[in-house]
């Protein structure tokens, strides 16, 4: 079984050098810790920046320089700022190579549900998730394979409200990495579990 840091490292290792990449809020931000300068990967933040650097040191925050999670960040040499319509044109127009998102559920054909649990008292919030899901050339998801209540998060069909259809290409989890597509889920690697046992626990043909 992999830790979140190990999952993040695996995602980072699969990002092609020189890619423009958007890391979603939450766990995906950990991927940045595993990207080397030599990789030449440039981070995009949808509030309007390319060349985003690490979080600002406490006491040195500049609140005009924040990431999509509204945390103070820093700029790297070669950074660029732009307005929101340009920022989302970078996604929708197919200029962004990879985005890494978290998820509540992912279907075997790559449908993504990550913005709303559908609970009646929940206040819905979508942000840029739908634009990223359909815009980035490759959408990677990192998550635990099972929810806290034990239910599988890789499913035949999502029951939570969808973020995007057939958009996730790779799924990185604590127990396995999957390739997703029109033909369903294919296991690439497993961690501490056999494929047969995994298929049984998920109730899926793998």
């Amino acid at each position, binding site marked *: 079984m992999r830790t979140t840091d190990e999952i993040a490292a695996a995602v980072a290792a699969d990002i092609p050098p020189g890619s423009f990449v958007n890391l979603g809020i939450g766990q995906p931000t950990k991927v940045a810790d595993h990207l080397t300068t030599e990789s030449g990967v440039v981070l995009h*933040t*949808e*509030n*309007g*920046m390319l060349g985003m650097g690490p979080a600002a040191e406490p006491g040195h925050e*500049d*609140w*005009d*320089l*924040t*990431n999509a999670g*509204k945390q103070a960040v820093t*700029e790297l040499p070669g950074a660029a*700022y*732009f*307005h*929101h*319509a340009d*920022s*989302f044109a970078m*996604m*929708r127009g197919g200029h962004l190579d990879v985005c890494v998102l978290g998820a509540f559920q992912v279907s075997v054909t790559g*449908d993504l549900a990550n913005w*709303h649990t559908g609970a009646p*008292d*929940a*206040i*819905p*919030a*979508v*942000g*840029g*998730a*739908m*634009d990223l899901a*359909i*815009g980035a050339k490759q959408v990677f998801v990192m998550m635990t394979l099972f929810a806290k209540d034990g239910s599988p998060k890789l499913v035949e069909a999502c029951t939570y*409200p*969808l*973020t*995007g*259809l057939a958009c996730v290409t790779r799924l990185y989890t604590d127990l396995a990495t999957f390739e997703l597509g029109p033909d369903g889920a294919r296991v690439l690697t497993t961690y501490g579990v056999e494929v047969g046992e995994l298929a049984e626990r998920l109730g899926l043909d793998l």
Partner: protein
Amino acid sequence: MRTAFLDTPDEAVADVADGATVLIGGFGLAGMPIALIDALIRQGAGDLTIVNNNAGNGDTGLAALLAKGRVRKMICSFPRQHDSWVFDDLYRRGAIELELVPQGNLAERMRAAGAGIGAFFCPTGVGTPLAEGKETREIDGRTYVLEYPIRGDVALIGALRADRAGNLVYRKTARNFGPVMATAATTVVAEVRELVEIGGIDPETVVTPGIFVDRVVVP
């Protein structure tokens, strides 16, 4: 018409009408025109529709306007945040309407309004609850959703610097929605940190040209 330079934020928002649609710049607090919002609170207009990425943070700026009960409807992409207690309470009490719009659509719908585009087909949200009931079309094998412009009666934006021609530059990620909102409202008011003479901004670096800016105020 050429940009007017006003002495106080109060003058700059004096004519905002009840029922107006007000585009408010900022992503969280970055780029939020706090002095203009405070002036709008003092001015007293109500029954407003507010367009912003969020629905207020903490108790200042947009959150303060919401807390006064002046807002009938929020159009935004991400209302729920760790510090959005003012909106959360209004929403749970059914005291405010919410139109949830994916962030890129929010920007593009205002861009369309500002560019005179009647509507556009967009791939964002296809097959999701946020596209339900909307017209779709298949173009070159891909499905798109028809989205309409969002136009404001007023835009309140924050920028770093204006010159006496009304040209604006912004600072870092505080730029966010400012340049798009500046194109998309009948009256555009910019709150800037400094005002410089003509020639004080290199024409090559102007982000929002003065044609889009009606009023400038240095709080």
